[in-house]
């Protein structure tokens, strides 16, 4: 980020602002993005919402998501492992020629490997989700049940001198409630 953010100050407080309407939250973040509050960047912002708001990325900026990679890797492993596993099982189970069929039967193994592909793909996806969505971690404070009902929450970490301007910004955009906690 550019100039103002350069000088490193210890963040001492975390603020949660609750908004009744997504547009207000949107504007808050838009303002932050345009450095209406010096020393605060969008990177410090976390949005909490009852529903998904993909459009927030317009102001929050593109943030990467690696789920498809997980899925792909999982699927690839699933298929290869599936096929090799079956083939080697059959290769070790020779004493059963059946109905004049070969020992290692490609068509049936492909069907099964295909199932394995999907199974592993799904599981890998889930794993990726849990990992990159930081689920199953210890929950930080500053959470309000209202965000699972209908309110939008903006969590932002501030230093002592950016604390007040931040609140003003919230108020300017008709914040409903402001919670704060100190980072120690």
């Amino acid at each position: 980020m550019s100039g103002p953010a350069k000088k490193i100050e210890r963040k001492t407080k975390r603020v949660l602002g609750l908004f009744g309407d997504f547009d207000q939250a949107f504007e808050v973040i838009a303002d932050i993005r345009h450095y209406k509050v010096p020393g605060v960047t969008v990177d410090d912002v976390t949005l909490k919402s009852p529903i998904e708001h993909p459009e927030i990325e317009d102001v929050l900026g593109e943030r990467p998501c690696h789920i498809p990679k997980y899925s792909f890797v999982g699927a690839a492993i699933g298929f290869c492992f599936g096929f090799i596993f079956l083939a080697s099982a059959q290769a070790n189970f020779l004493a059963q020629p059946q109905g004049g069929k070969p020992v290692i039967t490609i068509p049936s193994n492909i069907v099964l490997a295909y199932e394995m592909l999907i199974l592993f793909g799904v599981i890998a996806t889930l794993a990726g989700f849990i990992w990159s969505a930081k689920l199953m971690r210890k929950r930080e404070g500053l959470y309000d049940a209202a965000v699972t009902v209908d309110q939008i929450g903006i969590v932002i970490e501030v230093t002592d001198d950016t604390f007040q301007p931040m609140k003003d910004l919230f108020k300017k955009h008709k914040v409903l409630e402001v919670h704060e906690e100190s980072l120690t």
Partner: protein
Amino acid sequence: MPSLLGNVFKGWADYSKANEDGGHHDYEHMYAMSIDLDKCTGCNACSTACYAENNLAWVGEEKFGARQAMNWMRVERYFDEPDVGEGSPDSLERGASFLPMMCQHCNGAPCEPVCPVAATYHTVDGLNAQIYNRCIGSRYCANNCPIRVRNFNFYDNAPTAWPAPMDQGLNPDISVRSKGVMEKCTFCVQRIRGASDKAKREGRELKDGDIVTACQQTCPTSAIQFGDLLDETSEISKAWKRQQVELGKYEQNKENPEMRGYRVYEELNIDTKVLYLERVREV
């Protein structure tokens, strides 16, 4: 299993080999049968001998009526003869046609690939074997058998079929099947094993005629022949050659129409190993 991956490559080698010869391994024997329908009198001796030899349970009228009988070999009786045209509508002009039917030990057996636990498979003797201990009774094999020669133990038949002291007459060479497993004709595998063990003890090769199945042994008209097709000198392989019926072939090339050999359900290409000789009729 440490050897697991080690065997993979050999497995692949076998796989490619298997592909060349249609999935068959090197057969040590190829036991086959031939039945002359012109000689079969439909007397049931074969099927009763099978009951005695193979510990087959009788089931009684009710279960037989529910078609849950355990007969490995049955003699079917047909009154029509499509090949010699319709007879008079109000009376038979000829006798009936009898067909001893048992597991044909197909080389392209439809029952084998569908078994989920590989309880039925093809042995190196060319037998279609059923591993009772492995069978879990999914009954897919029987569903896929066009001739319906697989019998399933719908009940625990043993207690009723062999009330003491009848159980003393059981053949110790083979097991008594419990409920929930599939069973079928084995070409009297216990006799095959016995004969080959005997041959081994005497330090010689099996020779034609060493192995006699129970049905063949008792057939009063000697309509049933049994032997090893891989043994060029055996009666059975001569018979098959004479009848110009070849194993593993879909289209048989019969130059001589007088040769009566044929196999049932050839159109299904299941490659059965029981050669039937056509019935002859004077008309």
